[in-house]
């Protein structure tokens, strides 16, 4: 196994806790607005680590650039959909959770 492959594998391995954190946050957080954090932050960071690790595994500039564009596309899409969902939830009068 070459050093670049090892770095790629380690980066992908580092992504797994973020995905687990995202799922756990989605299950444990109290309302829609807090659950949005778990999804759009933790999961996209995990996906970023996966793309970074895949870039090391790719060994080809064109494939690496394609991976970068996939990540940027997902980031843009999830930012927009996060805003849309929070907006829709606010319009349907879902109360933000307050610590009691």
């Amino acid at each position: 196994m070459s050093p670049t492959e090892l770095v790629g594998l380690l980066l992908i391995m580092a992504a797994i806790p973020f995905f687990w954190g995202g799922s756990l946050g989605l299950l444990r957080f109290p309302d829609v607005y807090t659950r949005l954090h778990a999804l759009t932050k933790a999961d996209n960071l995990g996906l970023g680590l996966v793309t970074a690790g895949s870039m090391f595994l790719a060994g080809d500039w064109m494939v690496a650039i394609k991976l970068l564009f996939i990540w940027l596309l997902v980031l843009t899409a999830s930012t927009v959909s996060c805003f849309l969902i929070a907006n829709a939830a606010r319009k349907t009068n879902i109360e933000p959770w307050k610590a009691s």
Partner: protein
Amino acid sequence: MSLLIGMAALILISVLVGLVRIFRGPTGADRMLAAQLLGTGGIAILLILAFAMQMPSLLNVAMVYSLLAATAMVVFVRRHSRENKETEVITDESD
């Protein structure tokens, strides 16, 4: 690369655990968030499998998947807001 496939399986299990939110609800927005989780996790799994199984075309599948997840979200929000508007109109008429 069985190590890579094992990592993809771990991510898949985490996504499946997150999908419990679809059963729990309580609002439509929560359920849609679980679908978003499936989108992000699915893209990560596809990227890993593209290298584990030496199938570069899976990268294109991942790209299409990200676009479809975004489109599904926009359709949900449009529908959601329209249904709300309709119920508002009904309550206005009853007043």
